[in-house]
C-alpha cells in the first residue's frame, strides 16, 4: 500500500463516501466535497504522469492479497504504467470538467448532493479500472461504474423512460459483464492467476481453446461497456440522464473502459486470430451502424450517442488491426472532443429546453462559447486537419489498411478488408452528420426570444475543454504518444501518418461538408431529408431494439411465467399432494376401527394365521 497510484481511486471514493453522509447533503457542502475530490484526483493524475512517462516501459506494481481461494490468490492492487497514467489524466480532467459543469447544470436540482457523490464514485470506479492490477479487481471498478451509470441515467427517476433507460443500460452491460466474468474464469483457471501481468506472461503457454474462448468472452464485456454491436442498444437510451453524465460516462470514460481493456490485454487478443476477426467484424458493423443512425437522429444527444458508438468502434477496429497507438490516440482525441461536444450541447439544451434538433435552428449563433466549442469539437470529430482528429483517424485507417493488406498482426485478410472499407465509409458518414449538426445549429437566422444564459461554471468548463481540445491539435501528440505508450510486443509500432492519406481524407470530408451546405442552403432544409423514407429505419438503429424485444425479452417473460406456474402447480402441488394423500389414506383406514369387536378378532386371527403359515412354509 505504498504506491501513490492508490490515491487515484481512493480520493474520489472518499469524496463519494463523505458526500453520502447525511451531514454533507446540503448543496454547498456537496459541491465543495465533489470539487475538492475531483480537483485533487486530477492533480494527482497529472503529478503522477511525468514519472510514468520518464520510463514508459516500467510497470509499478503494488499489490495486496485480498482473496486467497485455493490455487487462486487474488492480489488486488495497482499496476501503474504509462498507459494507466495517460488514461488516468484523461479521466481526471474530464471528471473535473464534469463536476465543475454540473454545479451549474444542476443548480436547481434538489438531488444534486447525491448526484455529486455518485459522480465521485463513478470516477473512483473508472480509475480503479485504470490502475487495477488484477482482472477481478478491474471487474469491481468495471461494474461499479455500471451501477453509477444506472443511478445517474435514472437521475430523473420520475420519468418513466429515464427509469427504463437506466435498467436497460445496467442490464445490457451486465450481460456483457457476466460474459466477461466467465472469460476471466476461463483464463484465470487456465493460467492459474487473474493478475494482468502474470496472465499476459502466461499467454504463450495457455491452451489455445481457453485462449480463444476466454478472449471472446472478454470481448462480450467490451461490447457491453463500449456499446458495440450487438450490445450497443443501451447507449442511445442512456441519454435520458443529465447531460454532464452523458459527457462523462457515455463519451469519455465508461465507454472508454472497453477500449482500455482491449489495450491493456492487447497481447492476449493478438494471440487469437479468431478473436481479432470477431472484433474486426464487430467494429466494422458498429461503426457503420452508429454513423448511419447518428445521421438520421432528430435528437441532439442521441446523435452524439450514436456517434460515440461509431467512434468507439473505430478505436476497437484499430486495436483489432493491431494498431495499438492508433487506437489509443483516437481514444484520447475522441474523449476530449466528445466531452466538449456534450458539454456544449448541454449549454444549448439548457438554453432551449428541448433536445429536438428541429427546434434548434441557429441557436448557436447567439451562444458564442457554445458555437466555438461545437465547431472545434465537431471538426475534431469529423477529422478535418489541422484538428487532432485528422491525425488519429488517419493513423487508425492506416492500421486498418495494413491489416487489409494482410501484413503484420491483425485479423484475417478478409475481415481486414471489410474493416478498412467500413472505416473509409464511416469517415464520410461522420463528416456528413457533423456537417448536418453544425449546419442546423449555426444556420441563420438566429432565433429570437429568451435564451437561458449558461451559468459561469458551465461556461468555464466548456471553455477549458475547448482550449484543451484545441491545444491538443497543435501538440505533437501523434509524435509523442508512441514514445509514451510503447506498444506491446506483437502490435504495430507507432503511428503511421501519410500526408497523402490525411489529404485525401480531408478532401473527402470537405466535399461532404460542401455538398450538404449547398443542399441545406438552397431551401433551409435539414439534410436528413435526403434519407427519405429510410430515415425512420436508420433513426431506430435498424430496429435492433424491437428485434431484441421480440426475440429475447418477451420469450424470457413467457418462459418465466410458465416456470412460475409449474413451480406453483406441479412442484408445490406434488409436495402438498403427498401430505393430502396421507390424510386421505388416514380417512380410508377408518374401517380398521369400525367398532365391532368380532371384526377385530377376525382380523387378529387372520393375521396370526397368515404369519404362522408363511413362517411355517418359509422354514
Amino acid at each position: 500500500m505504498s504506491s501513490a497510484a492508490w490515491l487515484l481511486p481512493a480520493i474520489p471514493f472518499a469524496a463519494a463516501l463523505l458526500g453520502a453522509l447525511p451531514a454533507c447533503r446540503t448543496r454547498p457542502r456537496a459541491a465543495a466535497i465533489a470539487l475538492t475530490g475531483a480537483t485533487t484526483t486530477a492533480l494527482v493524475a497529472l503529478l503522477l504522469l511525468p514519472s510514468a512517462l520518464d520510463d514508459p516501459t516500467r510497470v509499478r506494481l503494488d499489490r495486496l492479497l485480498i482473496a486467497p481461494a485455493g490455487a487462486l490468490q487474488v492480489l488486488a492492487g495497482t499496476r501503474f504504467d504509462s498507459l494507466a497514467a495517460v488514461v488516468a489524466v484523461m479521466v481526471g480532467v474530464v471528471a473535473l470538467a464534469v463536476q465543475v459543469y454540473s454545479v451549474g447544470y444542476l443548480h436547481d436540482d434538489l438531488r444534486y448532493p447525491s448526484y455529486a457523490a455518485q459522480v465521485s464514485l463513478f470516477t473512483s470506479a473508472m480509475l480503479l479500472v485504470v490502475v487495477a492490477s488484477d482482472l477481478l479487481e478491474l471487474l469491481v471498478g468495471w461494474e461499479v461504474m455500471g451501477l453509477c451509470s444506472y443511478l445517474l441515467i435514472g437521475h430523473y427517476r420520475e420519468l418513466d423512460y429515464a427509469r427504463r433507460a437506466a435498467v436497460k443500460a445496467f442490464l445490457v452491460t451486465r450481460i456483457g459483464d457476466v460474459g466477461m466474468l466467465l472469460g476471466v474464469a476461463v483464463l484465470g483457471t487456465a493460467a492459474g492467476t487473474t493478475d494482468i501481468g502474470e496472465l499476459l506472461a502466461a499467454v504463450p503457454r495457455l491452451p489455445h481453446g481457453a485462449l480463444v474462448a476466454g478472449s471472446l468472452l472478454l470481448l462480450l464485456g467490451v461490447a457491453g461497456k463500449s456499446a458495440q454491436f450487438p450490445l450497443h442498444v443501451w447507449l442511445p437510451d442512456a441519454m435520458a440522464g443529465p447531460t454532464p453524465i452523458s459527457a462523462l460516462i457515455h463519451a469519455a470514460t465508461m465507454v472508454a473502459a472497453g477500449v482500455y481493456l482491449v489495450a491493456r490485454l492487447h497481447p492476449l487478443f493478438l494471440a487469437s486470430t479468431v478473436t481479432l476477426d470477431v472484433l474486426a467484424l464487430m467494429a466494422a458493423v458498429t461503426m457503420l451502424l452508429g454513423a448511419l443512425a447518428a445521421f438520421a437522429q432528430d435528437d441532439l444527444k442521441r446523435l452524439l450517442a450514436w456517434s460515440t458508438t461509431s467512434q468507439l468502434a473505430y478505436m476497437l477496429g484499430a486495436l483489432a488491426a493491431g494498431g495499438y497507438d492508433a487506437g489509443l490516440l483516437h481514444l484520447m482525441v475522441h474523449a476530449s472532443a466528445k466531452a466538449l461536444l456534450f458539454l456544449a450541447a448541454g449549454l444549448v439544451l439548457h438554453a432551449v429546453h428541448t433536445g429536438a434538433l428541429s427546434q434548434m435552428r441557429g441557436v448557436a449563433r447567439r451562444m458564442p462559447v457554445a458555437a466555438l466549442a461545437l465547431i472545434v469539437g465537431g471538426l475534431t470529430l469529423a477529422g478535418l486537419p489541422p484538428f487532432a482528429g485528422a491525425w488519429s483517424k488517419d493513423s487508425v485507417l492506416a492500421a486498418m489498411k495494413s491489416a487489409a493488406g494482410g501484413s503484420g498482426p491483425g485479423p484475417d485478410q478478409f475481415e481486414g478488408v471489410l474493416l478498412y472499407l467500413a472505416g473509409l465509409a464511416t469517415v464520410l458518414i461522420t463528416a456528413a452528420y457533423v456537417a448536418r449538426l453544425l449546419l442546423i445549429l449555426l444556420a441563420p437566422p438566429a432565433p429570437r426570444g429568451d435564451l437561458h444564459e449558461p451559468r459561469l461554471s458551465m461556461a468555464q468548463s466548456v471553455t477549458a475543454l475547448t482550449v484543451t481540445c484545441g491545444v491538443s491539435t497543435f501538440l505533437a501528440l501523434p509524435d509523442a504518444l508512441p514514445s509514451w505508450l510503447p506498444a506491446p510486443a506483437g502490435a504495430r509500432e507507432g503511428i503511421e501518418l501519410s500526408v497523402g492519406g490525411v489529404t485525401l481524407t480531408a478532401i473527402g470530408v470537405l466535399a461532404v461538408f460542401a455538398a450538404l451546405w449547398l443542399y441545406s442552403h438552397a431551401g433551409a432544409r435539414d439534410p436528413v431529408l435526403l434519407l427519405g423514407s429510410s430515415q425512420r429505419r436508420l433513426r431506430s438503429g435498424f430496429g435492433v431494439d424491437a428485434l431484441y424485444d421480440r426475440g429475447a425479452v418477451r420469450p424470457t417473460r413467457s418462459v418465466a411465467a410458465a416456470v412460475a406456474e409449474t413451480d406453483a402447480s406441479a412442484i408445490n402441488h406434488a409436495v402438498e399432494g403427498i401430505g393430502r394423500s396421507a390424510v386421505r389414506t388416514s380417512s380410508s383406514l377408518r374401517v380398521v376401527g369400525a367398532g365391532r369387536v368380532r371384526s377385530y378378532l377376525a382380523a387378529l386371527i387372520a393375521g396370526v394365521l397368515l404369519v404362522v403359515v408363511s413362517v411355517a412354509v418359509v422354514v
Partner: protein
Amino acid sequence: MHLAVPLVAGALLFGLGIYGVLARKNAVLVLMAVELMLNAVNLNLIAFGAYLRDRFRTGEVTTLFVVTIAAAEVGVGLAIVLLLYRRRESVDLDRATELREEAA
C-alpha cells in the same frame, strides 16, 4: 396311543374354539369358546408331558396353571359381560359399537 391322536384332537378343539369366537355374537358363548381353546392347550400339555417323560412334570404343572388362568378369566369376563348387560340389556357383541372411529 400315538402322540398324534391327542395333538390332532387338541388342534381340532382349538380350531373349534376359534370358530366359536368368530361365529358367536353372544358374549357368553364367546367366553365358552375361549374356554375350549384353553382346554386344547391343556390337552396338548398333558400329551407332551406324557410323551416326553419330563422329570420336572412341566406339562402337568402347567396345566394346573392354565386351569387357574381360565377360571380367573371366566370370572373377570362374566363380570364384564354382566356389567354390559346391566347398561345395555343385551350381550350381543355386534351391538357394542359405540366406541369406534368417527367419520371425518
